[in-house]
């Protein structure tokens, strides 16, 4: 091989495909190899080289492994789009699977398993059966994984052909790599199957524990994770298992260490001897700490896991708090996690050291880290009664530096400290009040107001202080308003003098008459009524003794903690969420296109992809998961709210977004829902492309089930195959809660064309002034695009039919569609600009010919074959652009099902 691979990316002036075709058929081996490389290069940058399928497959029969691998790579990519041609490769595959060279045998099976074409799968079974019993371990280990591949394509086939048994036999293989892959494959199959397939009993346990010692590091992880599901019969067995696993703690691979930790923790649950447990804790501590010497990414995983482990077994790392001190150059995500663990490990013994650290962190540069450090001091105060005073003095020191966000954060935590230790530290209130006018964050303001109200009787000028807030009452956020209301009532109850009396009038008036907030209004009315009917009862209610709080701000529910501990060393332990909260392994959600593997090429880069793809796909059930693991579950189904990106995402600037003008309220048949109210924060959008008076419209219905008036609606269409775009502004008047509006948005074609293979997806973004941008994906209905001028003369029809090569004919059968009569069918189709040309009888079948025209005068010739009254419709189309035939079939389905 000579030169650089990158030369394969260069293109010639002459047509690239014909030139490659020529080279692929060259008589010289080297030239053929170079040509295949060029094809692969084109494929990786997203060019469509599927037309070279036959020529590439012809290069498959070669002894040259390098070339063979390249051809196989090509096959994996394109076989699905050329299933009929893929059959050409079957013979070579079968032959290769019997090649004397084990690498070729393995390669054949590996590749066949990756080609998800039924006809190939059929031919896979026999070679796979042989390869599972091959003499060469490389072939066997490849075959083991191949069983999992086959199960994914066709689970029944795997069970029927006895592959599961063969796979289980491989657990006893003498080669550890084979054992590891067999375990991995079985574990995956078990995961996706309801019947018990891979159950670990004491025999398999022994086998696997033996294999563990000889396996590669990755195999050890597979085996350890499979074994962690095993429940030991008694403490003695658990101790035995632990003894076998403990040496893995010395491994340099962090994944092995964490999987071993998981296994040991699991078995510890059964061990009764406290000596053994203490000893195990001692053994686990150093390797856990050593994980913090790895790359920051690994540290992050380790810290999230340690966070769980110390909640269950606080003694393990009780003496190691120093290793969790933040390093100056730790990434912020590592520092945040370390703080959490420091709080968990803080004790009366080490609190002075810990406070010294927190104080230092509180003067660093990163604002979020500083805030968290300040909060950490407060949490230590709440956690450690004997250290509370020291914590408070550190907080006061920090307040004196007068850095605004430090002061505000400190006031928030001091409020919590007051809740934890009532009537203990009020002497510091005077200091806090000095910072009163610098507070500008709602939470800090609310906290300060709470403190003033709660201790109004001890603050001489409490009324003045509160009064200073009253002027801006209507502008304050709800959180502050609520606190002001309560604090004023407290003040009044404690000091029922003239000043507070006037204040309470103002507040109650503001909170009942001048507000839209129902929470505020309701609370104000309750106070009002209480005060006017029975002031003593009001005292009992408002000034009642409050329950003392504890530091549970980051404590997990015991049952959740147990579940997460069982999932140590999995994603679950990083997110601190049970697996079912984020695992959505639904094949159906995937809109797979043929060229998926390589469509995102390096040179094609950004422009060729569909940037809004994932954002626009229907929201999954889980919503976004934040690895930082906030305890309250996020609101369900929030599709990426990135309003500012709207313009960028769509590849156009914001100026192109058309504003709302005047409303039109047409009515019509029900439209399919594209954004359900549950996903759209109460806004439900229904929409469909439609045709009216020779024009394409986007018919839309907006229903506002939210609490707010929605206005400023705009719409934007992503680049699409037909270049559909809005021809004018979206005309929706401000939408009041409980109302709906319909509109017909005129559309134009060929405005923003997408490159790449044709797709019927229409990605749309809708925004308004109140909500995040809603992205959704609609289908382009082809019959909305069929022109009124699609009628053809019979002669012209025949002429066109003949002039188009057979490769332009695409056929599809619809076994579920029944035609009730020829006439009604023609009538139906004519309504959508598919014009009747001729009909004939073929046996007891009716054949109908129709013509239509897609924009830009592309003829669309249709042949429908069906038996009236019997299910089954055969549909053939012939057109110069057969790529869009699938859209037509979608349209047919839609029309006949309706």
């Amino acid at each position, binding site marked *: 091989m000579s030169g650089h691979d990158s030369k394969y990316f260069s293109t010639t002036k002459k047509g690239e495909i014909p030139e490659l075709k020529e080279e692929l058929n060259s008589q010289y081996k080297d030239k053929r190899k170079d040509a295949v490389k060029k094809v692969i290069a084109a494929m*990786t940058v997203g060019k469509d080289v599927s037309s070279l399928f036959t020529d590439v497959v012809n290069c498959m029969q070669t002894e040259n492994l390098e070339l063979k691998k390249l051809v196989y790579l090509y096959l994996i990519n394109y076989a699905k789009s050329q299933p009929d041609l893929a059959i050409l490769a079957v013979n070579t595959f079968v032959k290769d699977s019997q090649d004397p060279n084990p690498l070729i045998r393995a390669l054949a099976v590996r590749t066949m398993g990756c080609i998800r074409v039924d006809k190939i799968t059929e031919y896979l079974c026999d070679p796979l059966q042989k390869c599972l019993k091959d003499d060469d371990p490389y072939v066997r280990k490849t075959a083991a994984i191949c069983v999992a591949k086959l199960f994914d394509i066709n689970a029944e086939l795997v069970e029927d052909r006895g592959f599961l048994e063969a796979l289980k036999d491989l657990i006893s293989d003498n080669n550890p790599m084979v054992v590891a892959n067999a375990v991995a494959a079985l574990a995956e199959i078990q995961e996706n199957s309801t019947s018990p397939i891979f159950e670990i009993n004491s025999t398999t346990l022994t086998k696997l524990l033996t294999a563990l010692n000889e396996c590669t590091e990755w195999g050890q992880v597979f085996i350890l994770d499979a074994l962690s599901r095993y429940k030991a019969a008694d403490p003695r067995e658990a101790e035995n298992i632990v003894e076998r696993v403990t040496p893995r703690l010395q491994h*340099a691979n962090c994944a092995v260490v964490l999987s071993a930790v998981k296994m040991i923790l699991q078995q510890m649950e059964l061990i009764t001897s406290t000596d053994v447990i203490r000893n195990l804790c001692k053994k686990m501590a150093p390797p856990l700490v050593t994980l913090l010497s790895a790359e920051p990414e690994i540290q992050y995983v380790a810290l999230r896991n340690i966070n769980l482990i110390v909640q269950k077994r606080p003694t393990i790392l009780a003496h190691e708090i120093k290793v969790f001190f933040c390093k100056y150059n730790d990434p912020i995500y590592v520092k945040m996690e370390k703080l959490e663990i420091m709080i968990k490990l803080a004790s009366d013994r080490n609190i002075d050291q810990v406070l010294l650290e927190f104080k230092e962190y509180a003067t660093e540069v990163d604002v979020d880290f500083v805030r968290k450090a300040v909060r950490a001091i407060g949490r230590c105060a709440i956690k450690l009664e004997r250290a509370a005073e020291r914590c408070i003095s550190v907080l006061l020191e920090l307040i004196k530096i007068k850095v605004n966000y430090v002061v505000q954060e400190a006031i928030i935590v001091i409020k919590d400290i007051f809740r934890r230790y009532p009537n203990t530290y009020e002497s510091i209130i005077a200091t806090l009040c000095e910072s009163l006018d610098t507070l500008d964050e709602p939470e800090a303001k609310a906290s300060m107001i709470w403190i003033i109200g709660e201790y109004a009787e001890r603050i001489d000028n409490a009324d003045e202080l509160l009064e200073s807030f009253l002027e801006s009452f209507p502008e304050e956020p709800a959180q502050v308003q609520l606190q002001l209301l309560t604090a004023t009532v407290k003040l009044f109850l404690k000091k029922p003098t003239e000043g507070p009396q006037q204040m309470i009038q103002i507040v109650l008036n503001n909170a009942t008459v001048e507000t839209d907030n129902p929470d505020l209004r309701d609370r104000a009315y309750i106070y009002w009524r209480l005060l006017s009917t029975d002031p003593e009862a009001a005292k009992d209610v408002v000034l009642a003794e409050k329950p003392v709080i504890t530091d549970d701000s980051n404590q997990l529910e015991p049952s959740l903690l147990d579940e997460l501990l069982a999932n140590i060393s999995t*994603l679950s332990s990083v997110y601190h969420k049970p697996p079912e909260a984020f695992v959505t392994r639904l094949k159906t959600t995937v809109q797979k296109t043929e060229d998926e593997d390589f469509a995102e090429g390096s040179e094609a880069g950004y422009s060729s992809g569909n940037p809004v793809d994932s954002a626009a796909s229907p929201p999954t059930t889980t919503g976004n998961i934040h*690895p930082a693991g906030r305890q309250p579950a996020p609101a369900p189904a929030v599709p990426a709210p990135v309003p500012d990106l709207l313009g960028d995402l769509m590849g156009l600037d914001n100026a192109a977004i058309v504003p709302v003008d005047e409303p039109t309220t047409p009515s019509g048949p029900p439209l399919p829902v594209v954004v359900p109210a549950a996903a759209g924060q109460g806004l439900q959008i229904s929409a469909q492309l439609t045709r009216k008076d020779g024009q394409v419209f986007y018919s839309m219905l907006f229903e506002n089930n939210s609490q707010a008036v929605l206005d400023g609606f705009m719409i934007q269409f992503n680049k699409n195959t037909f270049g559909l775009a809005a021809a004018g502004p979206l005309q929706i008047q401000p939408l009041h809660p409980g109302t709906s509006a319909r509109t017909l948005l005129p559309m134009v074609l060929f405005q923003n064309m997408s490159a790449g293979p044709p797709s019927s997806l229409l990605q749309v973004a809708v925004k308004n002034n109140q909500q995040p941008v809603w992205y959704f994906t609609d289908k382009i209905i082809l019959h909305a695009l069929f022109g009124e001028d699609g009628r053809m003369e019979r002669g012209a029809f025949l002429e066109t039919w003949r002039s188009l090569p057979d490769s332009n004919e695409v056929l599809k059968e619809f076994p579920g569609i029944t035609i009730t009569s020829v006439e009604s069918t023609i009538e139906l189709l004519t309504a959508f600009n598919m014009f009747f040309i001729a009909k004939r009888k073929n046996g007891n079948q009716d054949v109908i010919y129709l013509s239509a025209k897609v924009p830009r005068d592309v003829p669309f010739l249709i042949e429908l074959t069906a038996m009236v009254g019997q299910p089954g419709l055969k549909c053939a189309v012939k057109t110069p652009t057969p790529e869009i035939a699938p859209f037509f079939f979608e349209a047919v389905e839609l029309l006949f099902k309706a």
Partner: protein
Amino acid sequence: MMISQFFVLSQRGDNIVFRDYRAEVPKGSTETFFRKVKFWKEDGNAEAPPIFNVDGVNYFHVKVVGLYFVATTRVNVSPSLVLELLQRIARVIKDYLGVLNEDSFRKNFVLVYELLDEVIDFGYVQTTSTEVLKSYVFNEPIVVAPTRLQPIDPAAIFTQGAKRMPGTAVTKSVVANDPGGRRREEIFVDIIEKISVTFSSSGYILTSEIDGTIQMKSYLSGNPEIRLALNEDLNIGRGGRSVYDYRSSSGSGVILDDCNFHESVRLDSFDSDRTLSLVPPDGEFPVMNYRMTQEFKPPFHVNTLIEEAGRLKAEVIIKIRAEFPSDIVANTIIVQMPLPNYTSRASFELEPGAAGQRTDFKESSKMLEWGLKKIVGGAEHTLRAKLTFSQEFHGNITKEAGPVSMTFTIPMYNVSKLQVKYLQIAKKSSSYNPYRWVRYVTQANSYVARI
């Protein structure tokens, strides 16, 4: 335990390599990932954590020489496995290509895809051992000249300066032959120690830690067995003592808190005579990682003084003293100190005759920066910085400035006193005498002096 996709993105988000193993993640995952990482705002953290979930797809990433190595999955995998795998893939590719950058990737894309197909099958890791892969991978690397080399690992520092180091070694492909067809028989053993020290404002050591690695890169043909002897007085485990206890540790040999070994290492005689034996696989790998909190002598002493001069001015004096022998030279030293955010100007004064030093006040981040090309053992250097404030300070400048942090590299020096006493290669013939390079280096990890 399996991943769905693996891809490599450039800093600008361009696709360099993309492989889909299971076709279960929707199209556009590369863009989704890049957008998320670029605009990470959740929780207010500017830097995205290495693992996050978007629409049911989990994204894992590590950054290696400015490139994003990314894996996606839909299932509840072991995150440490995936992250470790991403690091290993980077290492294997570097073993093959010699240099890891966009250019070398593009020139070798066929080889990279071939490697990826052997490393991962159906999303399952098969092997990441360069040694094993050699028997399955047939493309030969096209070696890219290591221009504008960015260091991928600490060992790369050996290419800077120091003449006695064969500079090309670390950028040499493990599989490619030298021009002329023959490979030089040589083996590198690097003892790399990253040290973290925090000094209190009064100069006491608050925390200190050494993260060490014995790294090996073998270019020996025929994979001979190797014996590596470490200090005989090496101890592992601090016993029952806690980290707070520094008293009893001096003078009793080298005590490691913990260590772990590469899977090729045999420890048969480790307990008796502290020797490791192994048959080194091809490629670069850590023979042993270790961690120490035993007290050691920090290589630099830092002394910072802040003198207020009126309400709007102050002077900062930073003094650093190299506490290692005079035949040792530290290089690429950078001293940084955040200044109060109302600092408007800083003017610097170096000692008379200072050479190879630069100073800078970074206006946007209010950072003082002092760079020194080298510091000879025993030497002391001083920087004076006159600060001007845009507003009167609130009282205590030390609360709003600092701490002082340092980065440096000290070749041929290690603070732990861990040593490779000898490196024995099983002889094939009497004339067989390969080059052996045992090299030490100490680097700052987090070296901080509070003020």
